[in-house]
Structures are given as C-alpha cells and as structure tokens.
C-alpha cells in the first residue's frame, strides 16, 4: 500500500496484500484504488477504529461484514463493497495513478479542502446545518480568483490556470 498526497488529498494505492495498519491507513485516505491482484484484511488493525471508519465509508452492514467477518477479501470484492472505487489490471496501475493525480493536480486547490469539510459536515451535523456549511464554503469559493479564471477559461474554451487565490 502506497499513500500519495496531491494538494492535501490522500490517495491510497493498493497493489498486493493490504493488512492491519496498512489497511487502517488505506481507509484513512480520501480516495482508494487497487490492482486486481490486491487483497485486503482488517486482521491486526484496530478493529474499533476500522469499524467506525468503515461504517462511514460503506454503511453499517458492510462495515460489520468486514470487521466481524474477519475474512481476507480480493480486489473484486473490495470494489463491490466500496472499499476501493477503482480496480485495474496490475500492469495498468501506474497509468491509472498518473491519471488520477493529474486530474487532482489540475483542479483549483482551494476547492478541494472545502469539499472535504462539507463531506465531513454532511455526516456529523443535521441536514440543515450541513447545508449551511456547504453554502458558507460556496460563498467563499465563488469570490475566489480561481473560480473566475475557471469560468473565463470555460467560455474561451481553453484550460484554466489556477493560482490558489
């Protein structure tokens, strides 16, 4: 398991066995992708921490299947359960990682942490309070130079350049 960081967004890349603390660290990333040869197991990890995290990531039923079922599962099952959102053949993994990091690197940097904050709020707060957080972030972002640059680039049909302002 490798972790990459692009603009504060953590990506877990799984190729091979992902067990115990590696599994915990993979769950802690924002986005997870895997090679079709990857396997996963919660064995040796802090099961309570994994259970809490998995319940948020996958829903309660699937979290219990993984933590209490105590089985090793393969990449196809990881995709079915939602532990990873993308599985590719082992040989295609570097290309898939490059594609993802390029995508993230091309996005306006201020929007990414704002999205993370709103995702967290969606689960921790009431619906109305979470929407209020989302609106607050939107107000802040709509006034940024990066947003203006993106809209201008869109109408001019060219790629935007972001400065993080």
């Amino acid at each position, binding site marked *: 398991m490798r972790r990459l960081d692009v603009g504060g967004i953590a990506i877990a890349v799984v190729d091979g066995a992902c067990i115990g603390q590696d599994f915990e660290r993979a769950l802690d990333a924002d*986005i997870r992708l895997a090679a079709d040869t990857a396997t996963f197991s919660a064995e040796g990890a802090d099961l309570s921490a994994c259970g809490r995290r998995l319940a948020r990531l996958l829903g309660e039923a699937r979290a219990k299947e993984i933590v209490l079922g105590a089985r090793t599962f393969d990449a196809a099952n990881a995709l079915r359960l939602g532990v990873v959102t993308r599985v590719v053949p082992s040989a295609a993994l570097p290309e898939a990682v490059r594609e993802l990091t390029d995508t993230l690197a091309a996005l306006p940097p201020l929007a990414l942490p704002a999205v993370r904050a709103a995702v967290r709020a969606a689960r921790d707060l009431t619906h109305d309070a979470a929407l209020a957080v989302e609106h607050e972030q939107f107000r802040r*972002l709509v006034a940024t130079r990066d947003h203006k640059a993106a809209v201008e680039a869109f109408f001019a049909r060219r790629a935007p350049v972001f400065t993080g302002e």
Partner: protein
Amino acid sequence: MGDNAQTRWWTDAGVGYVVIDNPPMNVLSDENRRGIRTALEEFRGQDVGAVVLTGAGDRAFCAGADLGEEKHLTDDTVGRFLSRGEQTFRILRDYERPIVGAINGWAMGGGLVLALWCDVRVGSTRAKLGAVGVKVGLMASNVQLSRLFPEGRARDMLLTGRTVEAEEAHRFGLLSSVVAPERLLDEATAWARGMAQRPRDAVAAAKRAVNLALEPEPAP
C-alpha cells in the same frame, strides 16, 4: 396540465410529469424553478400518486446553474442565488409524494443536485452524472452525495469532478435502473405507478422517515 417558457407539466393515470425544457443543455432557470413549484402544487389537487421529473431532448437532464449568470455573483447576490436553488430542492424533498428522476443525459453541478433530491433515479444509457463544481473552483451536492452514498464514493466523485456514466452509476446505486433512451419515460412511469399504487399515507411516511434517518441523534 400547464407550461411556461421553459417548463412543461401534465398528469396521466395518477402520475405527474414535469419536463425541464431549456435547450440545449437544460440549464436550470428561474422559469424552471417556478415551473417545478407550480406543477407540484397543481398535482396536489389532481390525485397524483407519484411524479416523474426529466429533461427535454436526449443531451441533458439538467446542466445546473447558468455559469454566465454565476460569473456575475457578488457578495450581495450570492445569498439569493443559493437560497433560490435550495428552495427548489427543498420543495422536492418535502413533497409528500415520491419523485422519480428520469436521467436522460447530463446531470451535472446543480443538475446533479436536482437529481439527488429526487427519491429514485432511473437513467438512459446516455446518462452522465458529475459533481463538476470542483472543476470550476466551487462545490455543490456535497451534502446530498455524502448522505445518499458511502462516504468513499462521495469523496471520489466530489474531489475529482469526474463523469460517472450510466453503467457505473447503476452499479453503485446512483441510478436504480438503466434502459435504452427510447424506453426511459416508460421505465420512469413504471416506477412511479408502482409507488402511486401503494397506500399514499404509508409512502409519504416512508419518505419522511428516510429524509430524517441520517439526522444525528440528540445527545442523551
């Protein structure tokens, strides 16, 4: 039955239909917001048991807010912009009958939000869904995506802004079924009729209960 410049609506056999008709991409206009509100109010007096919401043509369900309009938002006007959007979404959520989104093409940005506030979504093979806000330095649909889907899935869509095509959307439940474009309205009608035939009070209570299911429980 009724219409305005960019919205049409009618009823047929206990199902209400609302069509966003603002070509080419069905950008969500004030006319559409008004049309949706008026249609749902009219349906209340017309024995409608469920509603189908779709976009005209086969390019887009709804492409969200008008970027040209959004470009001119200032500190003063952004509040009104947000509350106008939210008002429409809340009307869908709080409507006592279930709403089926028939996703006939692009549903992106605010158009994705509109789709997510429907109770069930069915799509054509041309459906493409994306939380594209992040690509222009904004964000939308964070709360809805995070509540409807596992957080890992929500983060993937929200942080990359990538396009999710019909088949993938079906696989993880963003669409409940996928059919050929020419069959989409029949498919949405079948879902709507199925719900319209159930006891109305029970359906309304179930919708309310699910709306409230993820609210944090008050501390003891």
